[in-house]
């Protein structure tokens, strides 16, 4: 493993040769998101593509100019900014103004990523922090959910299925099949469970993601929302909770961040994120909760790593007596 200290590269243990750089991993993530991007264009129109391009371009340029100004090593070529940009756009509805995704992108890259030391050092998922900024400062800018071009209803904009479910409103016009394929209102990259899972399958094939963390997150959300349902104990709508919001996007592409390495820590954080997400969905003001669930888990990663110390190679665990 190579460790950069100052301007020097040092070989440090473990000396295992792997041919998988950050660039390759990030390229794989981008490839995995392309089916969902095509779905977004199909369901919400070319404005989805424009938002993605705007976010990606802004992220790349932000990082480039920041590192140029700071005279730091350029890392734009590692593709991580492309992933961040795509995720920012995936987390907003297609009616979002372009300026909003650009502001979110600049904030994500400069403040969340570069202020804290760049890739791997950011304290939270930059894309979700960008979304959180928009929710905090301009909530109306990312609240314009619309029905898809292929909806059977004649409505132009609509509440999300999860929003209707939370308020006890009728959402029967959206079938479970609609939720699976993505023919429902929502953020552009979150609606199609089918296309997201195809991308996730690719990541699993490429061994890029921790399937344990993804599974733990989804199962925790579904279990808690099923047990403590609005209509009474053990009466939650599992499929609606799974398919109608950003749960799959969050679990497959954002819960699997590289902020923490130890699998046990990742799974623990996923469970924490799941509990918070479910709590927000059940008792919070907002119908969703994925963003805040993952962000809180991100912020807790430091303390969780201290509590759940990873096994150190070559050191025996000492059993405490008495």
């Amino acid at each position, binding site marked *: 493993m190579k460790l950069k200290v100052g301007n020097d590269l040092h070989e440090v243990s473990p000396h295992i040769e792997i041919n998988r750089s950050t660039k390759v991993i990030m390229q*794989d993530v981008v490839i995995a998101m392309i089916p969902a991007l095509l779905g977004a264009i199909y369901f919400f129109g070319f404005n989805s593509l424009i938002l993605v391009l705007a976010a990606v371009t802004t992220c790349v340029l932000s990082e480039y100019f920041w590192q140029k100004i700071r005279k730091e090593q350029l890392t734009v070529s590692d593709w991580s900014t492309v992933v961040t940009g795509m995720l920012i756009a995936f987390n907003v509805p297609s009616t979002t103004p372009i300026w909003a995704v650009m502001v979110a992108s600049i904030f994500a890259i400069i403040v969340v990523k570069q202020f804290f030391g760049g890739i791997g050092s950011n304290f939270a998922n930059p894309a979700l922090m960008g979304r959180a900024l928009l929710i905090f400062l301009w909530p*109306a800018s990312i*609240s314009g959910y619309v029905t898809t071009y292929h909806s*059977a209803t004649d409505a132009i904009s*609509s509440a999300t299925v999860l929003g209707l479910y939370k308020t006890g409103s009728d959402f029967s016009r959206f079938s479970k099949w609609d939720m699976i*394929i993505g023919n429902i209102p929502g953020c552009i990259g979150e609606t199609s469970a*089918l*296309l997201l899972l*195809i991308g996730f399958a690719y990541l699993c094939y490429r061994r890029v993601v921790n399937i344990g963390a993804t599974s733990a997150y989804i199962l925790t959300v579904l279990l808690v929302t099923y047990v403590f349902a609005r209509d009474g104990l053990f009466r939650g709508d599992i499929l609606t909770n799974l398919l109608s919001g950003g749960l799959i996007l969050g679990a497959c592409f954002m819960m699997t961040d590289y902020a923490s390495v130890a699998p046990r820590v990742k799974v623990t954080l996923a469970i924490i994120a799941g509990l918070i997400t479910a709590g927000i969905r059940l008792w919070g003001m907002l119908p969703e909760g994925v963003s805040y669930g993952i962000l809180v888990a991100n912020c807790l990663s430091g303390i969780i790593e201290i509590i759940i110390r990873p096994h150190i190679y070559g050191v025996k665990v000492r059993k405490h007596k008495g």
Partner: protein
Amino acid sequence: MKDSRLKGIIALVVVTILAFGVIYGSKILVKDETGNNNQTQEDLPGAIDVTGAEGIVSAREITDDSGTVTAYSVVAKAKGFAPPTNPVTWEVIFENDAKTIKEVKIVSHGETPGYGAAMEESSYLDQFKGIPAPIYLKGKAPVSDAATDTPNVSGGLQDGIYSARTEEADSSGFIYLLTIKVENGNITSVVFDAMNREGEYKSYLSTVGEYTMTEDGLTWKEQADALANYILENQSIEGLTVDENGKTDVVSGVSISIDDFLELTEKALVKAASGEGAEAIGTGDTGVVAAGNGEVGEIDGVSGATVTTDAILQLVNNAYEFISAYAGK
């Protein structure tokens, strides 16, 4: 490594193409099942021309098999908290009296989840059922002191509620509205008010100090009530003389121009004399209040969402104004 990625990409492409085949196939099936569900209001029978009607998206008459109008549907919009590209848009269905709200449905909105989006709650929407328009927030309906006992003078008028309104807004953007109630041939209540493009009533604005004329004189609402009292006491507008500026010295404390008041009262009395356009006198259901000298609906606002609430008031009242004018009531 590269082989592994290439294989993965090929598999990804193949599966994605298959997935889109499934998605597209299901779209065709849904299209077949839904048939004409994509019809817009304009395409449906009984469509009403809404050209030039501000805030009105579409409207139509709902008829039964015999062609009798049983209700009116008006789709109206108003800017809420979301950007203008995502206005609050509702379908307001009125009974065939073009006043009583039968039902409201949300067509679209871009309000913030947890705040303005709380309008989607069925308990909120249900409060509109059966109340008469115009609507006000609870406790903010114009309550007139003029709704009092009246002399039992026979006026030859037919019982019912009669409304009249000015066709065009004045220089300040207000449209004037007048409603009289006739019981046992007597005028028992008179409501005189004005509404601006934002759906705000002059009576309310003057009461809360947002529409002032003089520091020490009567407010606009108090003057409107005084004029209404004059009608109740005299059962006519005879004797209510005006000068060249449309002002009167007959009613103490009234300094506003009363041309509109006189014109609308005359229109309403003509209707009352013939019984034309009479609305049945309501029974006072939940949410219905005697507002001043007539009946209006009262609703709760969307909790924590003032701007959204204002948009709802505006669009429902705009819908009412439009359809009542169309129906000639």
